[in-house]
Structures are given as structure tokens and as C-alpha cells.
């Protein structure tokens, strides 16, 4: 099958290729490497010290998409990791045990710093404890982000994070990189981030159109690629979003749906909002289950794990350190359940969704806990049909095609039934059994 690719996708591919080349050349360039996580990532700060970030989560999802995760997970389980441990962790550990070959086939450099940004996922801490054993020479910098228990960003939480950044993270970066902290250099990157974030929101909000020109889940994975990972705060990142917005605007003007692996989506029958990450091991097949049925995702929470920009937050050079603290606090999985419900409600309303789906991840407690409560609450508040399926991030053993298909068949028929229902259709004889 020929996969249709747009300029933005091609650009992103080049950006990734260059990033991995740069990573493979650190021995020659002497650049230092920071391993860190996507939610609450400090990419601008890492680049302000001319260091290079590596995201083990992204490597795991790439391994999943390249059908390597099964083998890596097996490797980690042979070492003693339980079946119930987060599959990202096992996939990452397995990959490192097998020589740390990255998604482009090049070997990834060892970490000089393990930056443990502890945002919204308590597994992160254990993950890096294990990496520390694999890389005993790496420095550890811990950034603890408290959950938004009260439902808002508290001043003392911002101060707590700022203190950690100033007293622990920045000194560790200075020590390892050999450079002094330069606030202006960081500020320039923050401003570039803000511009890209502005464009990203414009792209997300294009889902207000009918048909939606974007798929905010499967397509969304590509849209968030640069801003969630190694490129936020770069010129390249800004250019990517300018290109993407152009493509989206073209589709809006021509009343076209999003691009799927089989070309433009034909008919938009269902508009969905989804909670939870996608499955990576069967990504294309999983997506096909939806676009074949004319289902487009107009909103997703997964595309907010690396930062929520819907309520106006932008990175800012006014007080870069404070801005980073607020960014970390605001990430999706760092929010409390009522906040998550409110955000989903706003997506459903704003993007005129007619169904809500949860893709619960078997091995991700951070994301999955509370999803049933959220689903029920939204069903009651908005009288919207809801559906629930279960897969995993990168463990292919938990992707059961027939179970998922069976549930989705029912879900789509349920939506269809509701869309075509007229009052009076429900009348059945009182004595149906006679």
C-alpha cells in the first residue's frame, strides 16, 4: 500500500533522522546526553546547555511501531520484570540490554544525565532507578512535580519546582555540560516554543469544522511529535507547525477530511473524543478500525500529555523558570480527575463530538486509574454515548483484534442507532410475547 505523505510528515521525518545522527556522533562532538520523559520535559533548558535529549518513552513507542517491542519486553521479563510492569519500561530496558539500537538503526549514546522529571507518572522514578543501575556513571537530577490535587496551580507548588530547578537541576546541568546557565539563551527558546504552541492550538481547533480536517488521535500523534519531544523551542519546530497549518487550512477550504494511510478520509460519519494513549504495536490496523467506519477523532487527551495549551498557557521568557514550573504542573496526567473531565467536556462540546471512547491501557496505571469514573460522569453530564476498549502501549500480547472489533462494532452501531433515532421508533406492542 502506498502511504500518502504530506510535506509536514516528510519534514518531521528529516528532523528525526538528523536528531538521531547527531546523537550517534556525540563521541566526536563531545555533546552531553540527557535521558528524560515527555510529560513535563525541559527540552528548552537542555538545549540552552547545548546538550541533547533522549526520550525512552518515545524509543519504546517507536520499537512498538517497528514490531520490536515483543522481543524487548521478553528480554526484560527474562531478567525478572513482572508481566504487570509498564510495557514502556520493559521495552526500553530490553532495548538497552540488546545494545540500545534506536529507531533509525543507529546506536543511542549512553546518558550523561538521567533527568527524572516526575510528572504525572509514579513509575518514572522506578524506571530511572533501574536505568541508574545500567548506567552507574550517569548523574541524576530529580524534578518532583506535585499532582494538581486542588485542581489549580498553587503558588507554593510553583515555588517548590522553581527551587528544585535552581538548586538541583540547573547546577547538575552546569556541572555535566561545563557551561554556565544563560537565561537569555533559554528565553529565546521559550519564545520560539510559544509561537509553535500558538500554531498547535490553531491546528487542534480546526476540528471545529465539519468535516474535521484533522484526526486528533491517530493523526494527532504526528502533529504533536515535534513539540512533545526533541524540537520544542527550535526554528525547525516552528517551521513544521507553519507547514502543517497550511495543509490543514487547505483541507478546511476544500472540505476535506484528514489524511489516513489510505488517503483522504472519505466520509465523516462519527466524531469522537478519546481518552488514553493509542496502541503502538498495531497502530495502522487500530486506526483502520476507525476510518473504515467513517469515525474521526476530533479531540484526544493523549495529545495533551506533553503539555496542555488549550487553556491559554504558553511558555514565556518573562520568567522562564517559573514558566517551566507552570508547564510541568499543567501536563494532562498531572491534573486531577475533575480537571480531566472538564477538559474532555470542553473538547466534546467545542468539537461537536457525538461519541466518547476510552482506550484503557493495561499496563499504565497513571493514565487508566479513574477512567471509568470519568466516562460515567461525562455520560451523565452530556448524555453522550460512551465506549470502552482495552489495549496496551507496546505489549502486543494485550492487543486482541477480535475483542476490540467486537466492542467497536457495538459502539458504532450504538452511535448510529442514536443518530438515526426518531421519537416514536421505540414503540413496541405491549404484548410482544403473545
Amino acid at each position: 500500500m502506498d502511504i500518502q505523505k504530506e510535506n509536514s510528515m516528510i519534514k518531521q521525518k528529516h528532523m528525526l533522522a538528523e536528531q538521531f545522527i547527531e546523537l550517534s556522533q556525540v563521541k566526536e562532538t563531545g555533546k552531553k546526553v540527557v535521558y528524560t520523559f515527555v510529560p513535563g520535559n525541559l527540552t528548552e533548558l537542555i538545549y540552552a546547555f547545548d546538550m541533547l535529549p533522549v526520550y525512552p518513552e518515545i524509543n519504546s513507542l517507536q520499537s512498538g511501531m517497528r514490531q520490536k517491542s515483543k522481543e524487548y519486553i521478553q528480554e526484560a521479563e527474562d531478567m525478572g520484570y513482572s508481566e504487570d510492569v509498564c510495557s514502556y519500561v520493559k521495552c526500553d530496558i530490553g532495548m538497552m540490554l540488546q545494545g540500545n539500537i534506536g529507531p533509525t538503526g543507529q546506536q543511542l549514546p549512553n546518558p550523561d544525565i538521567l533527568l527524572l522529571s516526575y510528572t504525572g507518572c509514579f513509575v518514572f522514578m522506578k524506571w530511572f532507578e533501574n536505568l541508574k543501575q545500567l548506567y552507574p556513571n550517569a548523574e541524576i537530577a530529580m524534578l518532583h512535580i506535585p499532582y494538581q490535587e486542588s485542581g489549580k496551580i498553587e503558588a507554593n507548588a510553583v515555588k517548590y519546582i522553581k527551587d528544585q530547578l535552581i538548586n538541583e537541576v540547573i547546577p547538575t546541568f552546569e556541572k555535566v555540560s561545563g557551561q554556565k546557565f544563560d537565561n537569555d539563551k533559554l528565553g529565546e527558546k521559550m519564545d520560539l516554543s510559544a509561537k509553535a504552541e500558538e500554531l498547535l492550538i490553531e491546528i487542534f481547533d480546526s476540528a471545529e469544522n465539519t468535516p474535521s480536517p484533522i484526526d486528533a488521535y491517530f493523526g494527532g500523534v504526528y502533529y504533536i511529535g515535534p513539540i512533545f519531544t526533541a524540537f520544542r523551542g527550535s526554528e525547525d519546530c516552528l517551521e513544521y507547525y507553519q507547514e502543517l497549518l497550511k495543509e490543514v487550512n487547505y483541507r478546511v477550504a476544500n472540505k476535506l477530511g484528514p489524511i489516513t494511510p489510505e488517503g483522504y478520509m472519505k466520509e465523516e460519519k462519527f466524531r469522537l473524543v478519546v481518552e488514553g494513549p493509542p496502541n503502538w504495536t498495531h497502530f495502522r490496523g487500530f486506526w483502520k478500525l476507525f476510518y473504515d467506519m467513517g469515525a474521526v477523532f476530533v479531540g484526544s487527551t493523549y495529545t495533551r500529555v506533553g503539555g496542555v495549551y488549550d487553556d491559554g498557557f504558553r511558555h514565556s521568557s518573562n520568567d522562564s523558570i517559573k514558566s517551566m514550573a507552570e508547564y510541568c504542573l499543567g501536563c494532562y496526567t498531572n491534573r486531577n480527575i475533575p480537571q480531566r473531565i472538564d477538559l474532555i467536556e470542553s473538547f466534546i462540546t467545542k468539537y461537536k463530538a457525538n461519541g466518547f471512547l476510552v482506550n484503557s491501557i493495561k499496563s499504565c496505571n497513571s493514565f487508566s486509574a479513574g477512567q471509568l469514573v470519568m466516562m460515567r460522569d461525562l455520560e451523565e453530564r452530556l448524555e453522550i454515548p460512551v465506549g470502552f476498549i482495552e489495549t496496551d502501549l507496546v505489549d502486543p500480547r494485550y492487543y486482541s483484534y477480535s475483542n476490540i472489533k467486537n466492542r467497536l462494532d457495538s459502539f458504532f452501531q450504538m452511535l448510529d442507532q442514536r443518530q438515526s433515532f426518531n421519537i416514536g421508533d421505540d414503540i413496541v406492542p405491549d404484548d410482544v410475547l403473545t
Partner: protein
Amino acid sequence: MNVFLGIDLGSTTSKAVIVDKDGHIIGRGITNTRSNYEVAAQIAQNEAEFNSRFTLLHRRLKTDSNGSFDWGDIISQLENRFHYLQYRYRFYRLIEVMFENAALLENKELSGKVTTLLKKIQDDMLIDVEEKFLNGAISLSSDFFRDIFSTGYMQAIQDEDKSYYDQLVALYDRSITPVENEKLNFDFAQLAEEAIELLPEKSFQEDTDFRKNLDEVELLSLEPTDYIGTGYGRQLLPFEEKHIKSEILCHAMGAHAVFPGTRTVLDIGGQDTKAIQVDKYGLVTSFQMNDRCAAGCGRYLGYIADEMSISVGELGPLAMNADYEANICSTCTVFAGAELREYLNLGEKKENVLAGLHKAIVQRAFALLARSGGVRNEFTFTGGVARNQAVVKYVSQMVEQNYGKIKINCHTDSIFMGALGAALFSSRRK
């Protein structure tokens, strides 16, 4: 006439329901699901069609006699005999195949002995079930050919020369599957005539419109105007996509049609349990199904029955006689079997162990209900397992304990709800 067909191809049983243009059920058919799904669906449909003809005959006679004569008893006697004749046809077919297979045995002495034993027991086996059919103790609308035959056969061979027991069991095992998967074509008119001959009293035919109505009903075309297939095996039915519908919607539709106050449906089938929430129009708003594990479903009961060497139908009544429920903590079917053996070994009464097992199933179903949004008023319990009185007892108890006073609906037709929903969907299709 315009009739609509719904077929629910479950993992254990295949059900068919026929409704008329007004949505009234006129016929029901059920059979055990087998490896050839097409045959299972066809048998269920045929049964529903025959049952429809008897219903229509009854309706006509009732109208013609203006209620001055009660035809109910005669129709039911006639249908019992009709079932017996179907059984007899299949019985001879199976015996024929068993003789063929016996002749193929390489050990000629064994072959001869087995054939002799089979000849000896066959007549008694048939006489024994004939009586039960005729007095309504067994019926193809609740008992399946395979079960009726094997119960009688196992009993008969136990009473014979024990040294050939294993060979006789193997002979049955080898023969039943191909016979079950054969397509059958019964002629309603011919079987109905034969059934009349078996009636003890035939004088009702005189001075009434019985003959005229029977002739008319025999000639009625009951070819479905439209049809829908649902259930676990729906994708394997030889139906086009537009004739297939999800079992969630069909069960909800069936339950809501019979009990219009329904807001929550619990369906426990052979290998899946569904908790469905519906709105006042019967539209599904959410649902949950068991994932990856079928513990707590009908198959679990089947497994337990096998472990205890009793029939599934005996489980519920035994559990109802318990003094208390033994604590079964396992949620795995296979491990529950181990717990069962351990309890029996320790001298626990089997009734108490069975009560514990029934309670464990219901607890599992309630976890699923909680995931789907709980139990709302009214609550309708459907599926094959809803025929088990001990399950119904624990469901009622747990609804009250967890959700307070809620109206609980459970109908004797609970097993047909999916097929009914499918039939109703097809009758409403514009």
C-alpha cells in the same frame, strides 16, 4: 405472510425468533451451537418456523371457535409429538452412522460385539424417550438432541457388558459430530400428519375447522421478509453485512421490548457477560463486556457440571438446597474446579459448594455491572444463565444489597432476548 427473523448464534446455543409485522413473537427455536454454524442457524430457524406454524394454527382455531373450545392442550400435544418425530428421525440417522462406524472397526470380533450391543439397546432407548416426549417431560424447545440421546445411551451401555463401555462411548463420540453437522429437511405437513396419528384422541377433527386451518397453515410462506443475525458467531453466518447486528444492541432491544421500564440489562451467556445501560427509548448509552477471561459465564457452569458428573440443569436446584455458601475465592474457572474438589475432599456438602460457586459467578457479574455504571431501575436479567434459579437468587440479593429496592425482571424467555431484539430490528427497518 410478512414475518421477520432474528438469529442469535451464541457460543453454546443458537436461538431464532420469528415476529409478525406488528412485532409479536410467533415462533422460537433453539439448538446447541456446533462446529458448522450454518447448520446450527438453520436448525434454530427451522424450529422457529415450525413453532410459528403451530402458533398460527392455534390463533386461527381460537378465532374460528370464538373461544368456545380450548385448543391449547391439543396444539401442545401435537407439538410434543411433532418434536418426538423429529427426534426419531435424527435418532435413526445417528444409529445408522454408528453401525457404519462399528463395521469399520479393524478388530472384527469387537466390531461384531459392539454391533450386537447397539442392536440390543436401540429399541429400548427410543421407547424410553418417546414416553417422555409425549407427556411433555422433554421437548426440543429446551432439550437438545445430543443431550437426550447421550443421556439414554450412557445409561443403556452402563447396564450392558462393561468390558465394551469405552468402545461404545468412543463410537458415539465419533458419530455424533458428523450427524449433528448434517443439514436436515423436515416436511412440516408430513410430520404434522404423522403427529396427528400419534394422538390418543383424534375426534376433535370432526365438525371443526381444524383440517381447513391446518392445510392453510401448512401452505403459508414463512420466508422472512427481512432478517438479522447477531451473537458471538454472527460474522460466521452466511449473511451479508447489512443483516448482521451487534449483540449488545440486540439484547438491549429485546430486554427493553419485553420490559419497557428497563434501564440496566445484565446478560450472562455461554462465554461472555454483558452489562448494558439503556435510556428510556431503549437506546444503548454504554456497555461493558468481560475481557480475556470467561470465568463467571455459562461455560463455567458447564465445566463445574462436568467436574461433578451432573447435568447443567441440575446445578441450580442443588445449589438452592444449600445451608450456606462455601467461600469460593477463585475467579478462574479451572482453579474453581480445584477448589471444588478440595472442598468435597474435606467433606463439605456439594450443595454448599455449588451455592458458593453460583455466588462467585454473580459477584463477578456485579463487578462488571459496577464498571458499566451500576444498576438502575428497572433491571432486566437475560441470557441462558438467567434460567438458573440459584443465579437469579444471588442476583436479586446482590441488587438489593448494593443498589437498594429495584424492580428486577427475569423472563422465562430470557435466553431468546438477543434473537428477539434482532427480529425486532429487522421488522423496523425502513
